């Protein structure tokens, strides 16, 4: 098209342009592949069952039946599932931030005998597979009444109360904060706890946000421990557990439109968080990957 460029073919520039074109094609192509399943899920949630198996982009007829079913006729109600998920995820997020920050601060800044050994012990728990804990934790919890009634919620929260990676992530961040700031506060007469609360924690907000996001995502999406502790009582199910049970139990198994509407409901909160706090998702994962 552009003659002047065609006539003066700098081999390097041409190669670079070609590479660039290929790179963009790959980038956009893969982004499309990534979006198709989600787009198809949303489209399907507005279709009728016979229409849901057709290869059409526009629902014909367009219907809110599936949404009506998902919102009003699931057993247990989607509202119950949503609330269970939200409360469990909120509590686990709070405990991870709180306990992760306090322990992370102690490991980063305070000097006490056995500190490094205890920190190693925390890191060692990262090597113990989560599900290996199933039998002992279940027996321990059933011994103290945490496998029935309200105790079931407590059990799910206790298993996720604070993860080694929350402590690790916050500790690493605290280490990057200049010590001078704390010393200044100390000279002004502030104690360890006040210094932590007033000086250090506000400076560590990016790390706090990353830990909060990762904990929320993990507990909102979690399936294993809810399946272990909450399965026996329908009214305690979380969204992922409910979705799995609907999938497995006859009724909704292949009634795609309402199932897809439920998938959308279960995923929207995370997507909203992702849109607003994308940076913290990405940085949190990257930070947990850069060890040592």
């Amino acid at each position: 098209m552009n003659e002047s460029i065609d006539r003066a073919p700098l081999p390097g520039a041409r190669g670079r342009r070609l590479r660039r074109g290929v790179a963009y094609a790959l980038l956009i192509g893969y982004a499309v592949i990534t979006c198709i399943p989600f787009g198809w899920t949303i489209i399907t949630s507005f279709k009728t069952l016979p229409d849901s198996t057709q290869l059409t982009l526009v629902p014909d007829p367009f219907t809110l039946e599936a949404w009506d079913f998902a919102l009003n006729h699931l057993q247990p109600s989607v509202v119950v599932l949503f609330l269970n998920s939200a409360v469990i995820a909120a509590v686990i997020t709070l405990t991870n931030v709180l306990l992760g920050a306090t322990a992370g601060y102690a490991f980063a800044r305070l000097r006490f005998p056995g500190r490094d050994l205890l920190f190693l012990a925390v890191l060692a728990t990262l090597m113990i597979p989560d599900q290996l804990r199933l039998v002992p934790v279940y027996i321990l919890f059933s011994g103290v009444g945490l496998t029935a009634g309200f105790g079931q919620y407590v059990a799910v929260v206790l298993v996720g109360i604070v993860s080694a990676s929350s402590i690790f992530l916050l500790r690493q961040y605290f280490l990057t904060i200049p010590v001078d700031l704390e010393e200044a506060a100390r000279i002004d007469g502030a104690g360890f706890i006040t210094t932590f609360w007033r000086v250090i924690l506000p400076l560590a907000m990016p790390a706090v946000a990353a830990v909060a996001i990762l904990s929320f995502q993990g507990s909102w999406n979690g399936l294993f421990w809810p399946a272990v502790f909450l399965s026996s009582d329908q009214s305690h199910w979380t969204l992922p557990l409910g979705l799995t049970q609907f999938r497995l139990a006859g009724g909704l198994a292949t009634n795609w439109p309402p199932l897809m509407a439920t998938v959308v409901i279960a995923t929207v909160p995370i997507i909203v968080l992702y849109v607003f706090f994308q940076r913290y998702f990405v940085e949190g994962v990257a930070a947990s990957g850069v060890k040592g």
Partner: protein
Amino acid sequence: MAQAALKRGRIDARAEALAGYGLIAIPMVFFLALSIGTFVYAAYISVWDWNIRSGPEAFVGLHNFQKLLSDPVFIAAIGNTLYYTVIWVPLTMAAGLFLAVIVNQKIRGQTFFRAAYYFPAIASSAAITTIWIFLASPDGLFNGIRGAIGLNPLFALFGYAPDHNWIGNYRTALQSVILLNAWTTSGTFMLFYLASLQSISREVYEAAAIDGANAWQAFWHVTFPLLRPAHFFVATVGVIGGLQLWDQAFIAGGPNGDPANSLMTIVLYLYNALFIQIDPGYAAAVGMVLFAIIFSATLLQRRIFGGGPA
């Protein structure tokens, strides 16, 4: 005066240590009780005939382990889990590295693409697996598209009918789960790799360019070897995660890993031993075998990669 300062210093140090212990007390109790402690407890339970209500009934030594290794379903579970891990980890590492490299180019919209590729990893396994089952169902999107673009004769060569049920058929169930998880997790691996890629200095590439290396050679001879710590980390995380496959197998195949145990995994077997056979001693033995496998796999990787970051 000096003595007073010394004394104050000592009190300060004591207060500091007390504050330190106070701040780590709650997490440490949970780590000791629910993580490190449970490991010892699981080992103990595994050598007993254990009643889920009343506790230990009879010491059985290694009987639970013998019973375990003579159950063909458990052997199938080990086979499936190893097969899954051996295929899924390299596949997802390659995909994650590939995405990281193209996203790391000097391109416009880098942040957007990075966010888009990580996107599948943020949804719950329950949601994403349900979507996948729908897409791979006999009259789902995948079969529809391959029919529409005329690929069916190609698939017929491999013996797949136009309405093949990818997750519902024992021949393709595990492969479908591998693809699903490669797709969702490649975004996470991409982020791990990106962090390391960005730490490689420009000068290294300039030196390679002066030596006449093209982009392809620079990647294989410069980038790839320099990423060794990242390879080690991603592979370790991947293998530990892969050997614990449970979510997708349970969602797609239920507690038995249907069809025909093709989705039976070690952790699914562990779950069944506790909740269906209600045999905690036996289930604990499964857990110990899983730990032994994960532990040896990690050691093996350490050898392969010649040790990673501490």
